[in-house]
């Protein structure tokens, strides 16, 4: 390589979350020079407290919606679409804009995909108005990387035989399950009585110390909170810290990439970004990797037009941003009133700290007449109501007639909500079918604080998603009922969870119907990879962070061969 061709870095990675971490750490460990450009600040264990104001009441880890926002498009009753900027609606679509991304704040319910899932179209057939496809790779291609993530990220759990158990190349998880809440015994008993098999849910949480990371301290505040012990398998704690210690990886926080510049051959030559002071900086590299959250990845590529890519990088066949996915399903609750229990059981039920870690996979695939036979279902996870007291108390603020609740009435309601019962909740995860009505584009009328067009997201869903969600929610309600819960209710809707987003750059073998090839390289750009959840052509019926980690480890191996 002549000095004229010399690049600043071997690899430049945009983003630092679950899709970026494996690429960063694998390449740094292989001695490649890696630059990470992360929009947010670099916080560490000592910056994380069990502070509800920080995690959940203010925009501490995410931008102010006046500075950076989305425009969301929702369907109206007459089938039209109406768009609203999130600075007006307050519907925050950010997840965690810090080094390590949203993986800092996940709950870490970890599931592998199952072999049949990679052949969704072949196994279950087409669904009208849904863009269901087979994946260009198989479970066997991914299995080594699901396994690798278990040790590298730190996944605790216990392998239990069941009818949908995925094949594994190792006997069991490298870490035993985390401590379990007393309510687990009740769940197991009820499931036994119903002849259902309750399964331990693997968690990306260390149950014993590893290297610089401590074991879980069971504070009882996990999801939405940054982890102060290092036990949670965030990209930062599990992967970035050790990548930096190799001396080959540099992380630049407060660096907002706004354009990838490409040349006449369509190759990416430069990443342009704003630094903390708002000044434009640029960096060159041999290979560029984008992993800055599904919506933002599509947005960046759409904004990165070049001579060979007039409509955005990888958008010559108008596939970019299309087939955006969320997780479909919903959630439900049942109440357990202490006064209906003996004192010991009530005390046990009030325990704060250990995890529930129980789920049901009985209906991952199922046969049901109302679905015309064999159908694709999903999973159910049980969890306690989030212990955040402010959000719990806020639910008592309004009366049924939309007037505010205050004074002695409010205090009576608060006392009841906090001290008379424990809520056991469940979450249902099923496929958010890819459709033509769920995609990312640019909104040229709304700009972020740097003057770039923000992402506009159309939030259409498929009716089938609700049907499956309701089927599963009814099963979960059955378990709560068997447990003796009262006031059982659930809600399944087409409203997307902003913390579970994938797709937009689906991978596939045909450039006309996909953005990425099977290696997650943009089809017609020789040095650009996308390694966050954007690659997924279908979303799986499980939370997909483990899949994102595993796929990024897979692509890291591919990139390693090239630099």
């Amino acid at each position, binding site marked *: 390589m002549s000095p004229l061709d010399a690049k600043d870095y071997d690899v430049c990675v945009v983003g630092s979350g679950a899709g970026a971490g494996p690429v960063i750490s694998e390449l740094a460990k292989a001695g490649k020079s890696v630059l990470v450009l992360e929009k947010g600040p670099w916080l560490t264990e000592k910056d994380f*407290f069990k502070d509800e104001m920080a995690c959940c*009441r203010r925009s501490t880890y995410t931008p102010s919606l006046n500075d950076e926002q989305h425009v969301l498009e929702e369907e109206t009753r007459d089938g039209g679409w109406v768009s609203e900027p999130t600075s007006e609606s307050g519907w925050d679509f950010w997840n965690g804009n810090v080094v390590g991304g949203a993986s800092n704040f996940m709950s870490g319910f970890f599931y592998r995909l199952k072999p049949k899932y990679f052949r969704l179209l072949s196994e279950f057939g087409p669904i009208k108005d849904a863009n269901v496809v087979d994946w260009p790779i198989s479970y066997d291609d991914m299995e080594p990387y699901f396994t690798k993530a278990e040790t590298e990220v730190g996944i605790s759990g216990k392998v239990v035989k069941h009818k949908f158990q995925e094949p594994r190349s190792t006997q069991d998880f490298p870490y035993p399950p985390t401590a379990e809440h007393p309510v687990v015994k009740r769940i197991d008993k009820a499931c036994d009585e119903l002849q259902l098999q309750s399964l331990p849910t693997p968690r990306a949480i260390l149950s014993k110390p590893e290297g610089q990371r401590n074991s879980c301290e069971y504070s009882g505040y996990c999801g939405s909170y940054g982890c102060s012990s290092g036990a949670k398998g965030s990209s930062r704690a599990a992967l970035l810290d050790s990548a930096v210690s190799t001396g080959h990886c540099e992380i630049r926080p407060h660096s907002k990439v706004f354009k990838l510049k490409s040349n006449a051959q369509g190759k990416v030559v430069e990443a342009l970004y704003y630094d903390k002071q708002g000044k434009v900086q640029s960096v060159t590299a041999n290979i560029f990797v984008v992993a800055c959250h599904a919506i933002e990845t599509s947005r960046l590529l759409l904004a990165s037009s070049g001579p060979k890519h007039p409509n955005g990088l990888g958008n010559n066949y108008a596939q970019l941003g299309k087939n955006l996915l969320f997780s479909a399903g919903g959630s439900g609750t049942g109440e357990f009133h202490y006064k209906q229990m003996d004192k010991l*059981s009530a005390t046990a039920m009030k325990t704060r700290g250990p995890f529930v870690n129980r789920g049901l996979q009985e209906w991952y695939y199922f046969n049901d007449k109302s679905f015309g036979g064999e159908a694709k279902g999903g999973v159910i996870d049980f969890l306690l109501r989030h212990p955040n007291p402010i959000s719990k*108390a*806020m639910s008592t603020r309004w009366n049924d007639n939309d007037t505010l609740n205050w004074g002695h009435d*409010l205090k009576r309601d608060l006392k009841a909500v906090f001290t008379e019962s424990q809520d056991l909740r469940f979450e249902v995860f099923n496929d958010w079918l890819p459709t033509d009505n769920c995609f990312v584009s640019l909104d040229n009328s709304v700009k972020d604080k740097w003057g770039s067009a923000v992402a506009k997201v159309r939030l259409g869903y498929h009716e089938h998603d609700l049907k499956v969600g309701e089927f599963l929610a009814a099963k979960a309600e059955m378990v709560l009922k068997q447990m003796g819960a009262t006031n059982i209710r659930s809600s399944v809707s087409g409203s997307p969870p902003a913390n579970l987003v994938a797709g937009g750059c689906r991978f596939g073998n045909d450039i006309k119907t996909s953005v990425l090839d099977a290696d997650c390289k943009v089809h017609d750009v020789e040095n650009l990879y996308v390694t966050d959840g954007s690659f997924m052509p279908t979303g799986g019926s499980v939370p997909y962070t483990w899949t994102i980690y595993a796929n990024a480890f897979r692509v890291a191996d591919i990139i390693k061969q090239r630099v």
Partner: protein
Amino acid sequence: MNNDMINRRQFIQLIAALSASWPLAGLAGEQILGRSHDEIYQNLSDPWLTLAEVQEHLFPADASSPGAKDISALRFLSNMLDAPDTDAEEREFIFKGVGWLNDLAKTTHQKTFIQLSTDKKESILRKIESSNAGSRWLSLMMSYLIEALLSDPVYGGNRNRKGWEWLEHIPGYPTPSPQNVYFRLNGSFNENTRRRTKA
């Protein structure tokens, strides 16, 4: 029941482990943002005088539970209105609400809000609530009150953890000190990035 015995043993072991890793309370010498409780509440003048009275009406003390002053709700409000990320408009709006409230009290009863009986306070506040702006103002006051009741004491409310204690809430650890409250963590906050409180 056999199951419950097992649960109990595990539970006791767990509590023992937790107590060893974190002290259960850190009341002594707890550091708090802003001015002291006594400084805040002595010699009140408007708008703070009326705000304190409104808070006490919305969240009154009784024999078995704390009221707004007991949890230092006014100190919390003052700290939050001073926080670098609080929208300047929101601060103005809170203060303007005091003006509207007293204007209405004077037109209806020829008295300021704080001079009214509890019943009359209630009817004035319900009247305020029937307008859009009034409802927004009260709902914001309620948000700040509930945050004052249950946020970490470092922010100035939940005085001596009375809110947590009353609702038998078990906090998590570690808890923040004034050096690392939310608006000092990010490193990118400045006076230009103000925002509205999440309602």
